[in-house]
């Protein structure tokens, strides 16, 4: 099993510019230090209609209400501001930003558990005698004997046969070579929604691990709110 940088096609070059936008790093940094309520706020506001911050404060009384302490409110205000910045970029751009933010958040949380030098983005995984997958993995942890491959999605709707087959193939091919590869699907959506999506899928998912909105902190080696 070997890892390799993905070739830069046109789409990848455009997307790389999004990934490098400071807004992505700012959002990922804030969300890495957030909990379930703030992450849910980000999910709602980044794909909402209104750009009025007061409307979102009203919708999240546990974050902005009178019982909220100063630290909670300050953290939530920062998350709200960055989320509305994403939402204000327009339909196509906000979709790309959201995906890049989930990837960057995944990378940041993993960096709390494994050395940053072991974490890579947009990598292919090569196996002897096996055709290379078309799509690279969003994030990989490349530690001999403890490799991990992450596919990141904004919503459960992104879970489909292609994604499940690719993760399963990688895990099985690694096992065929006597290697251990943990395949993880990261979805910035509720576990209930992800399970609903998965229930209709016939693609294999044995050994697949899933991280959802409630359990993102597990990637950092700590339990999420709904663990």
């Amino acid at each position, binding site marked *: 099993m070997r890892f390799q940088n993905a070739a830069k096609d046109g789409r990848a070059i455009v997307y790389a510019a999004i990934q490098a936008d400071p807004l992505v790093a700012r959002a990922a940094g804030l969300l890495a230090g957030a909990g*379930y309520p703030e992450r*849910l706020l980000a999910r709602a506001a980044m*794909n909402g209609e209104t750009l009025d911050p007061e409307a979102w404060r009203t919708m*999240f*009384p546990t974050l902005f209400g009178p019982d909220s302490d100063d630290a909670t409110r300050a953290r939530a205000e920062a998350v709200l501001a960055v989320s509305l910045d994403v939402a204000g970029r327009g339909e196509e751009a906000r979709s790309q930003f959201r995906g890049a933010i989930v990837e960057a958040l995944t990378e940041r949380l993993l960096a709390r558990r494994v050395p940053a030098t072991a974490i890579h983005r947009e990598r292919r995984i090569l196996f002897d005698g096996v055709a290379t997958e078309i799509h690279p993995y969003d994030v990989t942890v490349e530690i001999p004997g403890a490799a991990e491959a992450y596919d990141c999605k904004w919503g459960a709707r992104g879970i489909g046969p292609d994604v499940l087959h690719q993760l399963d193939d990688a895990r099985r091919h690694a096992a065929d070579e006597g290697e251990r590869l943990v395949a993880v699907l990261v979805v910035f959506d*509720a576990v*209930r*929604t992800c399970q609903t999506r998965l229930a209709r899928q016939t693609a294999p998912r044995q050994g697949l691990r899933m991280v959802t*909105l*409630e359990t993102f902190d597990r990637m950092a080696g700590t339990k999420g709110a709904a663990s």
Partner: protein
Amino acid sequence: MAASVDALLLRVVVSLGALADTAAPVDDEWQYVADLVTVWGAALRAAAGARAGQEAPPGAGAAIDRLVAEAASIVDPHRAIDWLSTLPQVALLAAGEGPR
């Protein structure tokens, strides 16, 4: 007098149905849309039933009013599908429920 938790959450069930109508033009996701309405509707009804008659926490009434209005303002069917998951989660949080 503050609204009860169950009254607020049952309003969200109605809003969920309206979102499903908005999502209907996405033909290849009709089953997923129907499934989301079923599972999240059940979660909302279960939470409403468990807290029937309980006074809603501070701000919950205004939160649900604004949340339902936000959901009603969505016209893009793909965004509506995304909100079939977001709407109930935000509503449950506003009502003082943890993640479900």
